[in-house]
């Protein structure tokens, strides 16, 4: 991060126009994911996956929340229900995977920062789609897609989408 910041400063000295976009690229982003409170008879916390696809649909994994701690890895049995994620690389991962997997989370506001920044750091400039998929046992499934470009332009953020069923508000924004 230090290197990037100094690069931004150097660019800033070169020109104001250039400075605005480069400094944005140097800044870290945060992904907010809200999971809705659902009034259902039987509630299980959803499985959630977050990944980034390039224009050729090649994926960079960001996060997956599932029943990591079930005995004999039984929680992996339902990973395929995150259907798009499963197809876009989930099925080739050897889970649990450090820095990627965590336990499921209940209704409320959740935040992904380190994981999304390290994923973005691996990517070259271009157009991408950030996907958030949630699938719930005895429930539904939803995928939200947020298009974005690298390098990040400050004025293009935040990008916010509202889910309709399994996902609440998802927002990709500059880190506070």
């Amino acid at each position, binding site marked *: 991060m230090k290197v990037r910041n100094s690069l931004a400063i150097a660019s800033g000295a070169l020109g104001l126009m250039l400075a605005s976009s480069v400094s944005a690229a140097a800044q870290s982003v945060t992904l907010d994911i809200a999971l809705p409170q659902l009034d259902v008879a039987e509630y299980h916390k959803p499985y959630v996956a977050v990944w980034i696809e390039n224009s050729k649909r090649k994926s960079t994994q960001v996060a997956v929340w599932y029943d990591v701690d079930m005995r004999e*890895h039984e929680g*992996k*049995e*339902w*990973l395929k229900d995150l*259907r798009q994620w*499963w*197809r876009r690389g989930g*099925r*080739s991962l050897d889970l649990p995977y450090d820095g990627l997997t965590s336990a499921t989370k209940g209704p409320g506001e959740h935040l992904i920062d380190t994981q999304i920044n390290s994923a973005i750091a691996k990517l070259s400039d271009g157009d991408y789609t950030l996907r958030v998929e949630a699938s719930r046992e005895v429930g539904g499934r939803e995928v939200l897609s947020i298009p974005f470009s690298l390098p990040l332009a400050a004025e293009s953020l935040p990008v916010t989408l509202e889910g309709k069923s399994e996902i609440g508000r998802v927002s990709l924004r500059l880190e506070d």
Partner: protein
Amino acid sequence: MKKLSVTTSIVAIAATLAVSFSASAHRAWLLPSSTVLSGEDSYVTFDAAVSNTIFHPDHVAMGTNDLVVTSPSGKTIETENSTRGKYRTTFDVKLEEEGTFKITSFSSGIRAFWKDEEGNRKMWPGRGKSYVAEEFATAVPKEATDLRVTQGSRRVETFVTLGEPSEKVFAPTNEGLELIPVTHPNDLFATEAATFTLLIDGEPAVGAEVEVVRGGMRYRNDQETISVTSNDEGQIEVTWPQAGMYFVEISYKDDKAEKPATERTGSYSGTFEVLPL
């Protein structure tokens, strides 16, 4: 050169005729409980039946004597808990390897059909009997009304995948009519197109007739059958209109038969699950 072109046109006519025969009256199918699985190991349970209403067992149970389950690494897996009921056979397959499994029932052989002097339909070998080359000359008349000697094969198949899909089980056996996936059969999604190559005894099956029917046909008035014919490379492309379990039935016929047969036929029926995007 002239002679050659005459021969070619006869073949072309034969090929045109070949595509006009109708699909067989009874549809045999395998129905897996899941096709895409995750986890350390998993079971899939199957229904096997013969019925015209797709995936509703209402006619007769399918025999499983010719059934072979091949694991991703090429091992033959024994089925478990196999039971033959009135209308369907059920069996389980334990998936202990990651990758794609192939579940196939295949049979083939030569059979003669004719009418005797009283006009009764005759068939040799009889139902459940097998072809013995030495007996052909005595069992089948040299000339008879409507005499046909067919080299036929029938394949009923489906695929299931645990974890990451693999392709080893797609290697052709070069026997009968086969469907070789170009698009992985456990990676099918609504509104997307899938490509398959059809082979007859290892060669491209050109002009094979394909019918694609989505399950649940009891609950709709129109069968919504998609009809496709394989191209010169033996390929077909199917765009799945919506998610569901699909039955793909393929018929092929030509005159390149093994003697004493004069016609070669192949039938294939496969079950493919298409998921929503």
